[in-house]
């Protein structure tokens, strides 16, 4: 049975303030209103042009009519399907090369050469600061050489795309390594007799699959949306193809359907990714 102290008196001493439904209740309500207003305003702002684009893609030749021919044209419009194909292949290739290049290097550096990590980080963030347009100026002679020696069409773009993807991929992979405390895992594996290859391939990498997926999908989104370098280096990828079509006729329905499709595709990828990767705590999360 609980031993309680009895309240001394029932007569109420001076009351400080009148009740008003709770201070924190009011604050929560204000926050909810704020969120609703802000989130819906921005949603409208972002969705309006996009929905205009989608609506346009269904427009028929007579005013007021609707047709899905624009969407069907994605497959048949000269040059477009090829560009889509090449872009998707490019995305895949870039992602693979990026993973092969970056993952072993980052793990290796983290485990064996920690002092080099700052350098790697700097190099990986550098592409953010060097505008693509600038990079192209310097890449022109290099790609001229590439054209001469290896004409594998637009797929050669993977070379520079990997560099463009570095900042995003690095951040993902670094976060993944942090979360799993790679050093401790490696030490444990080494103490059990594993060689370096085993440590990297069979201990660390399998534990990083979320970060790998994150980096991959960000890379894919990047490649899908890239225009500047491809066009200036005179290759044809998805965005360049769309641009070319627009030069011919700005109102070709296929422009809008293809654009909408590519945006939607990338969005779905990233959205699904978010369910795979667990989220960190929020600003509203309370302490213990």
């Amino acid at each position, binding site marked *: 049975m609980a031993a309680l102290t009895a309240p001394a008196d029932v007569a109420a001493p001076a009351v400080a303030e009148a009740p008003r439904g709770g201070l924190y209740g009011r604050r929560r309500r204000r926050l909810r209103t704020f969120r609703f207003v802000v989130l819906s305003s*921005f949603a409208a702002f972002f969705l309006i042009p996009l929905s205009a684009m989608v609506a346009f893609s269904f427009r028929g030749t007579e005013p007021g009519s609707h047709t899905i021919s624009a969407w069907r044209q994605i497959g048949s419009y000269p040059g477009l399907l090829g560009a889509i194909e090449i872009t998707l292949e490019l995305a895949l290739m870039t992602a693979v090369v990026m993973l092969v290049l970056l993952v072993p290097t980052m793990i290796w550096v983290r485990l064996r050469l920690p002092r080099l990590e700052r350098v790697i980080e700097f190099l990986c963030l550098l592409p953010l600061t060097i505008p693509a347009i600038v990079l192209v100026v310097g890449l022109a002679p290099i790609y001229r050489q590439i054209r001469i020696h290896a004409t594998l069409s637009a797929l050669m773009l993977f070379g520079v795309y990997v560099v463009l993807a570095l900042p995003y991929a690095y951040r993902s992979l670094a976060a993944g390594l942090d979360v799993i405390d790679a050093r401790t895992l490696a030490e444990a594996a080494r103490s059990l007799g594993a060689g370096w290859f085993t440590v990297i391939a069979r201990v660390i990498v399998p534990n990083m699959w979320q970060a790998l997926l994150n980096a991959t999908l960000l890379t894919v989104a990047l490649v899908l949306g890239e225009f500047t370098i491809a066009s200036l*280096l005179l290759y044809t990828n998805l965005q360049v193809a769309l641009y070319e079509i627009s030069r011919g006729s700005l109102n070709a329905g296929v422009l809008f359907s293809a654009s909408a499709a*590519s945006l939607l595709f990338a969005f779905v990828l990233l959205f699904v990714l978010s369910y795979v990767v667990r989220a960190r705590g929020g*600003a509203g999360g309370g302490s213990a």
Partner: protein
Amino acid sequence: MAHVEPRPSGSSRRAWWTSASWTGTVPFFAYVGLFLLLPTGIVVWGAISNGHGLDLSNLKILADPTVRMAFWHSIELCSITAVVGAVCGAILSYAVATGNPNGFIRRTYLAGSGVLAQFGGVTLAFAFTAAIGPTSGFLFHASWFYSFPFGIALIYIYFQVPLMLLVFLPAVLGMRDEWREATENLGGSTWDFWHLVGGRLLLPAFLGATLLLFANALSAYATIQAWENQIPYVVPQEISKSITSEVGLASTNEAQALAFGMILLVAVVMTAYVLLQRRTSRWLH
């Protein structure tokens, strides 16, 4: 006592270990060297030399009035869109951050921002054409839209705000409840908190993100290319003019000088960004 094997002499052992480890990083450095450092070096070298030795005469093009105009337009457009984008993005970040971490809203906004931030140029221009363009006028047709910088600025903001969300949200999430409660407990009001604590803590992150937005706008090329309406040139267009004016690809000295000018501008901005980031990561992570 157990017999202990004598260690190999210090320096030779370390050298052996070091060189083996270093070879593991060669592929990465080689790759980055070829596709990032070399092009940058080509630009910088091309701008400040004439093929034989140091020669700053190429940089004279930066004084050319058309070029100066282009730089001015760039800076004007990018500052406006950076500031407006940063403020809007910060408000949006706060709205997103205060929601459920695993909720639908946060996922959608983050995925959407990831896409819009990457997909700036071509597709976006088409979307705006559909919404506001002359022959479609789907939504409405506003002639002010075509005067620089308003129309293009609106499109820029369209991908600046998502970028701001992506960059600034982690900082907002790094704000701890304890700070708010401690401020209250010590006698502070909501205004006191934002004025003395919250605002101060988020300021470096906010400024850094604004700078990032500026650099991002500076580099934007695709958008302007695809937005076929007449607008005064900005630097990226000048560069592309320079490169493609001849048949095929060529890096003229002018192009390199212009690119060099851009590098300088962005370098200044990004250095400031990195310095601000250090504060942010110490306080908010």
